[in-house]
């Protein structure tokens, strides 16, 4: 999976979550959108649902049992977590290889 495909996967998960009322509509969703940390469009509980769905989708697409480990993401600071859609897409692309 390349970065674009990973971005599409994230976008699809967000659309599903919005459609099922699990999260509110995100205005101007793009690679800069923050999903965790200061200015995040998701609260902590929504982020957990989001990550669980990303893992499920990732397994569906790759056929492999893959799990996200936040502190493996480049520049991820556990003391001050901050994650953008672009950062997550890059990580997913690496993880799926």
């Amino acid at each position: 999976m390349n970065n674009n495909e990973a971005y599409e996967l994230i976008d699809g998960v967000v659309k599903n979550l919005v459609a099922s009322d699990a999260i509110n509509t995100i205005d101007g969703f793009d690679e800069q959108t923050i999903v965790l940390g200061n200015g995040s469009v998701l609260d902590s509980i929504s982020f957990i649902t989001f990550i669980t769905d990303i893992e499920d989708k990732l397994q569906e697409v790759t056929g492999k049992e893959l799990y996200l480990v936040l502190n493996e993401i480049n520049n991820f600071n556990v003391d001050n977590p901050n994650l953008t859609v672009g950062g997550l897409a890059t990580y997913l692309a690496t993880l799926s290889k």
Partner: protein
Amino acid sequence: MVILITGTSKGLGRYLAEYYLKKTHTVIGCSLSANVIMHPSYHHTQLDLSNESNVRSWVNSVRKKFQTIDVLICNAAIVSSALFLTLTPGNLMESFLKTNVAGVFYILREVSKQMIKQKRGRIIAISSITTATHQEGTSVYSATKCAVNELIKILAKEVSSSNITCNVIAPGMMKTNASEELAKKLEWEKEMLQKQTIQRVILKEEVAHVSDFLISPRSSSITGQVIYLGLSN
């Protein structure tokens, strides 16, 4: 209901599994050793809870097969050794931490993710009164049970908005394979009972009674509690 119970090969875990099967629930269990419960509504997996990827795969497969996990009972633990802290080997201490703390942490994390998605759930962890009696020879075991109490109390706050309750049942001395083994050494049983307020062995039925209470729909506002059996608070 779909009830996931860890450590169902013997002792309290086996009792609870059979108890909830009799009540016509679906029970999903695990242990290091092979399945001993033969029942059409029982689903066993042999696994080591201290192995993070084993736990992830197991919960993942349960989620896919059953779509829901209504209740989690974290029961599995190492319940052995009556050694004074000064005599406890480092590797024994580490094995306690791996199973009783890391193992509980992994299962709590994976199951609570599913419960957050389904927006409801009941989590119960089995701890022990030794966290309050500070009995000699239980330093490492009790420390791991204190950790469990704290994991549950904090998780209770973190997941409360998803209609999930998290509580601890902390029984006094029970008759199980583990305690019978300990009772052979020292005057374990006598010493344990002397520390209890109700100075008798706690029955597994009594634990099931509290667990019934906690999973009842009417207990949806009870969370972050430690319920001692046999000890006044």
